[in-house]
């Protein structure tokens, strides 16, 4: 019977999450677009740097020195993505809102690894691998997901003489 009380309760239960959802969407969308722009620019700069997944070195690489290089990123879901993914979880199917998130993580990790190799004066990376791990959310007794880590690693090599055989 106390309508005022009911209104406040409704706003807290219904209006506020909706508002947060909208704000999360716009901010998340903005950050994602900016990140993708940044990734594309940096990939363009590094596009002539060989990054390959062969586990043995191609025969024509004559190597002077080598070292392991890594690149890692920890990326978090926004509230909007999580809610939509949760809805998707009820019926199954592709979690489309997570796809760009993980795409960003993969490309960013590879970029960081490649940039690291180039800054140390290496010429190429082979045996590149990607690993991912989930960071548990302490607030929800470790049941929720706070974010994911994407780790890229590989063997960076410095050529003694570049593509000697070709």
């Amino acid at each position, binding site marked *: 019977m106390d309508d005022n009380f009911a209104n406040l309760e409704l706003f807290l239960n219904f209006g506020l999450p909706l508002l947060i959802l909208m704000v999360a969407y716009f901010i998340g969308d903005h950050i994602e677009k900016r990140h993708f722009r940044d990734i594309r620019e940096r*990939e363009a700069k590094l596009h002539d740097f060989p990054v390959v997944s062969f586990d043995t070195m191609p025969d024509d690489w004559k190597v002077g020195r080598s070292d392991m290089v890594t690149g890692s990123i920890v990326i978090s879901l926004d509230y909007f993505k999580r809610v939509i993914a949760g*809805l998707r979880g009820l019926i199954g199917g592709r979690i489309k809102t997570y796809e760009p998130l993980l795409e960003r993580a993969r490309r960013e990790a590879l970029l960081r690894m490649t940039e690291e190799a180039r800054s140390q004066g290496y010429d190429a990376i082979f045996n590149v691998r990607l690993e991912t791990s989930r960071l548990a959310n302490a607030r929800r007794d470790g049941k929720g997901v706070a974010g994911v880590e994407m780790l890229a690693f590989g063997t960076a090599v410095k050529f003694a003489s570049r593509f000697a055989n070709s």
Partner: protein
Amino acid sequence: MRFVAKQPKEGINVSDTHPLVEAGTLVVGLTAIFALIALVLIFMIELALYFVSTEDEVNLFGDWLPEDLVTVAPDDDRLIETQLLVDRLAQHWPESPYTFRVEIDDSDVANAMALPGGLIIVTQGLLDQVESENELAFVLGHELGHFKNRDHIRALGRGIVLSVFFAVATDGDVAGIGIKATDITLRGFSRRQETQADEFGLAIVNSEYGHVDEAWRLFERWDIDDSSIVGLVTYLSTHPETGERIIDMKRQAETEGWLLTGNVTPLNW
């Protein structure tokens, strides 16, 4: 082998679907599914109401009290007076199968509830706010109206529907959306029941006092407090807007030719 520098292709791993389209599809689709399940459950409740008679209900719930009820001492003045008032009002509904029991809940929020087995719960907050017996009589008559229409069982059924949804949806955020959508749909049904209960309550008040003076004065006081609130609220609320309830009741009194003024009985405490 020759290394040829290439840019990776865009969009292989990412769906073209715009996130808002994805969100819209899911929300609309799931709401439809939730609504359908809710309607089926409501239909089943109506079916159960048809098969479970009021006599069975009284047998089942005659001694029942909600576990979380914080009640007052049995010799509390207001409890005794309210129980006496309910007994008097119930005489105007002689065919009632219930033996009505009154309990006072220790809550500051003004409210009254009709629960299975003829249990009427009024809150301390309500008793603090009523200024005459006629005001209280209407609220109690309104609750008797819920028993007459068996809304209290339906309300219980609505609670069951909601808890079923709680159980199905495990993720907090998602459960929230589905349950709220269902809740709002159900509140539509609830408002219609409140109007019917108002009609019954007013008729009882008129039979008891011979007039309907002050029956809705409590609501008039609330209505003044309410006037700052905007229109969406009516749609979301479990009860019709207080202003509309008053208008409906005035219209009913005029149609029935009931007296709008008369001797107002003061409270006994």
